C-alpha cells in the first residue's frame, strides 16, 4: 500500500513570500489532516477534511493560511504571506477510520 505523499520535501523562502505544499493521501482515505510541527514540539492540527469538506479549521490562521481538497483526494496548503514564525515541518496525514498515517512532511524555512 502506497503511503501519504508530500512535496516538496524542503522549501526556503523569504518572509512575505507565498508558498504551497501538496499532499496525496492513501487511496480510499476519506479523512485528511494538515499538521504543523515546530522544532521541539509535537504536531499541531491546522485543518481536517472529510472528503472535500472542512471538518475543523479552528486552529488555522486564516488571514495567511488556506487549504483546499478538490475532488476529495489531493490537498494543497498555502501560506501567503509567510512570516518567520511559520518555519516548521508541515505534515499531511490521512485516515480510513482508525489511526492516522503521516507523510514525510515538508520542512519550511522562512528567512
Amino acid at each position: 500500500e502506497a503511503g501519504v505523499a508530500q512535496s516538496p520535501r524542503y522549501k526556503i523562502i523569504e518572509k512575505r513570500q507565498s508558498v504551497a505544499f501538496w499532499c496525496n493521501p492513501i487511496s480510499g482515505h476519506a479523512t485528511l489532516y494538515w499538521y504543523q510541527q515546530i522544532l521541539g514540539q509535537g504536531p499541531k492540527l491546522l485543518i481536517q477534511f472529510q472528503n472535500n469538506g472542512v471538518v475543523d479549521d479552528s486552529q488555522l490562521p486564516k488571514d495567511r493560511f488556506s487549504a483546499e481538497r478538490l475532488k476529495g483526494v489531493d490537498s494543497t496548503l498555502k501560506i501567503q504571506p509567510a512570516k518567520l514564525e511559520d518555519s516548521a515541518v508541515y505534515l499531511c496525514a490521512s485516515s480510513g477510520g482508525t489511526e492516522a498515517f503521516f507523510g514525510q512532511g515538508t520542512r519550511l524555512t522562512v528567512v
Partner: protein
Amino acid sequence: DQQVKQNSPSLSVQEGRISILNCDYTNSMFDYFLWYKKYPAEGPTFLISISSIKDKNEDGRFTVFLNKSAKHLSLHIVPSQPGDSAVYFCAASVFRNTPLVFGKGTRLSVIA
C-alpha cells in the same frame, strides 16, 4: 494549555533492558490513545493504540498501559533495541477519526 504532556524530553536505556515512556493527559473526554515513533527527516509512524475501554494492549515488544483514573498512559518496550532509538509521541483523540492532540515527544536512545 497542553492537554497531552510528556514530561521527559529524553530517555537513555541499555540494549536489552526495558524502556518505559510516560504520558499524562488532562482532557477526560479523550477515549482513544496512540503512540507514534518518529525518525529524523521522516513523518511519525503509528506504533500502537488503546481505547479507553481497555487498560492494556500488547503488540510484540510493545505494550501500552492506560490508567484512566490517573489520566496516565505508558509505553513499555521490552527488550529495547538500538533501532528503537527515535522520538516517541503520545497522542489522544475524543473519538477515532478525529484530530489527534500530541505531546511534545520523548527522545529515546537505546545504547548498545
